């Protein structure tokens, strides 16, 4: 598929192929079969669920992709005026459903073994009980990663986001050593992406496509945010764990409910992870009090590999 025929197609939902995946991201992807005559047919058919609940098959070129304001690399350095993005993660609601993880991977076309968003099983003290802890980039206001970058490839924006320009990054990995939260991942080899994804025009706001020898990480989906939408991890979570919003407006939303940021932090004892490091994260956590799910639920139906990850916490004696 020629990139000219698919302007600004950054979320290549076609690649996902399956009906289920399309249904899951239905809100982010709209289709208009037949309407766009300016597109040449490419001959590749895609099956979709129409708004009437019927299954239809249309040519790939007729698919109009949601979004996609790909701002230039220069614009992406500035930030969205007047905003101060903030995230609140409610640990009492997380049951390791991992929908956020897979949504993030889909959104950014990264493979399953690469997690910009990961879920840790935390246990604060010997007497404490373990709880699930989704970990995004904290988009620190005093970011150690940005300080050390020798080429200004990772930068802090006026709206609080810390992004990476992977066309400037030299891959020295100093930011990875400097980040105390192990947020950043490196493309150790040529990323496996479809030609369509590879042809997408890159912006630090979309972080797609990945490039070999460069660093990448959770970006808070600024391209979605620019359109007034919530980041994909927020909308993908079945339990409303993630709240995203604007600290200036003092509101955060998990898609179902919109609440006052300052109020929930005050009432629920919101905190930032490792506050003592002085990095001033823009991600707040609500303590895992009165949890909705027992921690074991997080392992139901999970692969052995996933269960293996948490064995040190679950069976501390061994």
């Amino acid at each position, binding site marked *: 598929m020629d990139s000219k025929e698919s302007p600004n197609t950054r979320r290549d939902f076609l690649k996902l192929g399956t009906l289920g995946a399309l249904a899951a991201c239905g809100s982010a992807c709209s289709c208009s079969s037949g309407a766009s005559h300016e597109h040449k047919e490419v001959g590749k058919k895609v099956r979709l669920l129409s708004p009437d609940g019927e299954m239809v098959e249309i040519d790939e070129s007729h698919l109009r992709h949601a979004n996609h304001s790909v701002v230039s690399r220069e614009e992406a350095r500035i930030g969205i005026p007047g905003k101060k993005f903030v995230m609140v993660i409610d640990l009492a609601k997380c049951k390791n459903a991992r929908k956020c993880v897979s949504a993030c991977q889909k959104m950014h076309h990264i493979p399953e073994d690469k997690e910009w968003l990961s879920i840790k099983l935390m246990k604060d003290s010997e007497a404490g009980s373990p709880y699930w802890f989704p970990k995004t980039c904290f988009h620190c206001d005093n970011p150690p990663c940005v300080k*050390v970058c020798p080429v200004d490839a990772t930068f802090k924006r006026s709206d609080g986001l810390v992004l990476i320009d992977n066309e400037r990054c*030299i891959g020295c990995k100093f930011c990875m050593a400097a980040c105390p939260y*192990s947020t950043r991942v490196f493309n150790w080899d040529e990323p496996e992406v479809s030609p369509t994804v590879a042809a997408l025009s890159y912006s630090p706001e979309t972080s797609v496509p990945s490039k070999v020898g460069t660093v990448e990480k959770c970006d808070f989906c600024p391209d979605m945010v620019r359109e007034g939408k919530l980041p994909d991890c927020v909308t993908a979570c079945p339990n409303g764990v993630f709240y995203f919003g604007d600290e200036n407006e003092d509101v955060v939303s998990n898609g179902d409910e919109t609440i006052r940021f300052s109020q929930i932090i005050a009432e629920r004892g919101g905190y930032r992870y490792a506050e003592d490091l002085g990095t001033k994260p823009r991600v707040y956590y609500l303590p895992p009090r009165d949890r909705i799910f027992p921690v074991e639920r997080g392992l139901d139906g999970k692969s052995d590999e996933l269960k293996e990850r948490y064995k040190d916490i679950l069976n501390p004696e061994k």
Partner: protein
Amino acid sequence: MKLNDKQTEALKAFAPQIESFTKPALIWVYALLIPMAIAAYALYVQVAEGHIVTGMRDNVVWGLYIANFIFFIGISYAGAVISGILHLLNVEWRKPIIRVAELITVIATIIGPIYILLCVGRLDRLHHLFIFARLQSPITWDVLAITTYLVGGVLFLYLAAIKDFAIYRDATELKLQNWRRKLYKVLALNYQDTPEQKKSIATSMNLLSIMIIPLAIIVHSVLSWIFGMTMRPGWHSTIFGPYFVLAAIYSGTGVLIIAMWIFRKVYRLKDYLLDKHFIYLGYIMMVLAAGYGYFTFSEYLTDWYSSEKWNSEVIDKLFDLNQYGWYFIFANFAGVVLPIFIVAIPKLRTPNLITIAASFMVLAMWVKRYLIVVPTLESPLFPMQDTRIEFVQYSPTWVEWALTAGGIATFLLLFTLASKFMTIIPISEFESEKHA
């Protein structure tokens, strides 16, 4: 240029060294080309396939390469000791060894940064370091410091060699190819040993040796700050600057002793590189060993005693015999105790034993650099909770080992070639006994 009796004698003695390659020397050079060829292939593999061919992964983002980088920049301090400190103090016995020391400095400063480049994911964007340079980044500090240091080292080596180039140029008895004589002529800058020329070389060298001391301190300080400026346990230490500087001078002295021993053996220089040179350098090594041991002790004692959780993770790895315990013991035994022991006891204070101690010490210093880099990166703040063993634990691959061996081979090769180009002991430094 007129030579005094001592110089004439020395030139005669050193002529074979620079006139031709002996058969063993040729075999040696070809032997060095083997690891270099393997390294070239490893480099090709790494560039073609990406850093996936190394043992580095998202937690341990740096490994053998960075350890080698610190190591090579460390041994480059051989020259800083001799040309800087001993030159300023006008220590007479330094004269026969300045060239060896300066060669170590220049060659190691060339090889060291190559290892940083091997860590860089996008070599095609290296120019970004200059066009987008950010002064806040310790990497920029390093780029500036190391390039300045290299220029300083080359200048010092060259200034100290101008008189010798003039001697080679004028010595008709030397059997030299024409191109070499022409090259020496160019390099000698029309030096004719006039009083003004003598004076200007002496002044320049004094100035340079004053400059090279702060420069050397800056280079290893900013190098240590690549680690010290992060929030990582085992790295985030206020003494890292001086600790690294001292360790660098220390390992540089060790390599200088080893190099002198080898040259003395290979070029039969027993009349020039005397036992006293080894013993004096042994004293310097011993004092540095004590200082280095003190730094090491205070660094690990404070981390261990306060037992802050994140720090303890690294300390536990270093003290655990099933993890890095044996390496840690070796690094401190061979790196601190052995050199002090050998030099402190008069009976053991022989060139051979001092060289053996220096060899173990240099190896220990390399191990120590590895212990600084890897265990810290294996101890992130968040639990890794990763089932991919290569992400949890670093182990270098053949590519990294091949490039390590290749770097050492390149170091040796450049050293060998340099010793064929200029006498390993500066002829011009010999003073006539009649005047003395």
